[in-house]
């Protein structure tokens, strides 16, 4: 006797949705495919709300496979080699199913078992490539942000929200053979502290640096000030907890709304960490958006910068060399402290009036007035350039 249900139809369709619809139409039954977690993977349009709420409310019973808790529904387990893949739910009492219908449903169960297992295998394979995914994410190896977001979900990454990109780099070359050890330590410490403050922090060792992606809190503010404060306090805690960790600096890229711009933010963070050392050689936290004139100076050849410095500050340097006065350091400290006399004098361990006197002397030697904007900018830029020159090996 031939069945009135055409099982060949199932072979002509490829997706779970299509196969379930075919069976639903032929059996005139409403069906749903439930995932092992209890979430609805797919349901036919006319599945009743009462059936759905029953499945939702009795999720525990579903996970414990108590079929009797679902009156009016038939549950068929989906398995592959004793591994649960979910359930096929039919909105009909199992007693009302004829043998022919049961056989046809068995056929569907076989198809679903294979498709769900296949999906799971692909997912497992993709999940095992987390690092490669992050590499592609950070170097823009995707066509669109959507693709990144979809794949990110495999590792519970919510890439729909903007992320801060942070790069942590050791300030000095590490002892040979201990690079991996210190980088692991650094990652471990940061992961621990970040987990208490941020949802799903993403960390990755990329060559000799640690890259961290952190979801933005979404609070509207004009800059990254609050974020920097959090990172600074964590840095201090890590330093306190692990004083043996070699000195490291942090660079923070700009915040972009799209995942496609992570690559840009990573390069900015790297640039920030590298150029930040011209301001503070060790344990610095530098935001790319605060780099200012350093960003432009880094694109100029060191020889040209040297010429500019000699031209601008040459007389002062000569005077320092002849009289051992240290006026250049005074001028640098003055600019470094945003032209604040009390702060600069504290930095130099001198009285404010001494600093005033020194600045007067500097103006005399250079023949300029620091009160004029043009002169001030020129000397400020020269002081920045001097830091690049000092730290650049020819």
């Amino acid at each position, binding site marked *: 006797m031939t069945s009135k249900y055409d099982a060949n139809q199932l072979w002509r369709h490829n997706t779970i949705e299509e196969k379930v619809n075919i069976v639903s139409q032929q059996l005139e039954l409403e069906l749903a495919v439930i995932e092992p977690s209890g979430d609805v993977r797919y349901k036919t349009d006319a599945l009743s709300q009462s059936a759905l709420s029953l499945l939702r409310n009795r999720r525990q019973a579903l996970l414990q496979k108590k079929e009797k808790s679902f009156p009016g529904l038939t549950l068929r387990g989906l398995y592959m080699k004793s591994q649960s893949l979910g359930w096929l739910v039919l909105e009909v009492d199992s007693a009302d199913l004829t043998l022919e219908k049961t056989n046809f449903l068995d056929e569907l169960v076989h198809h679903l078992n294979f498709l769900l297992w296949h999906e799971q295998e692909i997912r497992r394979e993709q999940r095992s490539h987390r690092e*490669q995914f*992050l590499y592609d994410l950070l170097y823009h*190896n995707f066509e669109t942000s959507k693709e990144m977001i979809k794949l990110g979900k495999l590792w519970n990454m919510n890439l729909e929200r903007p992320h801060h990109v942070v790069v942590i780099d050791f300030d000095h070359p590490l002892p040979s053979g201990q690079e991996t050890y210190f980088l692991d330590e650094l990652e471990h410490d940061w992961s621990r502290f970040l987990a208490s403050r941020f949802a799903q922090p993403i960390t990755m060792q990329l*060559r000799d640096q640690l890259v961290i992606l952190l979801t933005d809190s979404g609070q509207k503010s004009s800059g990254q000030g609050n974020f920097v404060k959090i990172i600074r306090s964590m840095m201090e805690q890590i330093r306190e907890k692990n004083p043996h960790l070699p000195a490291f600096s942090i660079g923070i890229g700009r915040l972009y709304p799209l995942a496609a711009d992570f*690559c*840009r933010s990573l*390069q900015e963070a790297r640039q920030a960490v590298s150029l930040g050392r011209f301001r503070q050689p060790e344990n610095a936290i530098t935001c790319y958006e605060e780099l200012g004139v350093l960003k432009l100076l880094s694109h100029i*050849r060191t020889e040209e910068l040297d010429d500019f410095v000699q031209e601008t500050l040459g007389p002062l340097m000569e005077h320092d060399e002849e009289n051992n006065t240290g006026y250049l350091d005074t001028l640098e400290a003055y600019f470094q402290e945003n032209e604040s006399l009390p702060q600069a004098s504290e930095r130099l361990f001198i009285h404010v009036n001494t600093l005033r006197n020194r600045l007067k002397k500097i103006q005399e030697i250079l023949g300029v007035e620091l009160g004029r904007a043009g002169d001030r900018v020129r000397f400020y830029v020269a002081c920045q350039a001097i830091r690049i020159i000092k730290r650049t*090996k020819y």
Partner: protein
Amino acid sequence: MNPHQLGFEVDLSKCVGCRACEMACARQHPEAEKSFRHVERVGGGERPQGFLTLGCNHCASPECIRVCPENCYDKLRNGVVIQHSERCVGCGRCVGACPYEAPHINAKTGKAEKCDFCLDRLKEGKKPVCVELCPVGALKLITLNAEQIDFPGDPLVRYTRPSMRFIEAREPVCFWRKEGKKIHDK
């Protein structure tokens, strides 16, 4: 993760400045306005001390990726930086930002273009054409590790970390005939 990073090794003591790499590149990429590789004299003075062949260095931290507003640049898992000209709007930011002057604007298309490490050849298991056709073997294809990517020098060079290695030219050795000794003396 210590990603794979392909790069070039230039042996300055072998390079004779024949420009075969330039010509091979131009032939491999006929659509490009000019060769992606160029040879420069180094050393200066009366007598050049050697020649240096330069192209895109496929940096570990590429500036082109940072500055491109259209996200035209990708860095593949083998470290090769590629440019998608179909997305390029010809703004020229990458041209100005690259410290090695690797990208340039094609006057015909108005879009930026640069060396793609002969990606099609790499897929076939072949070397880039400039490496393949160097008659003296001065240019080589190498895989760099993390330590080799660290560069001293200008700040820009230090943070872009070009994937390139040099073998410095040896000092020229001069042989002088002994005073008063004739060449044909036995």
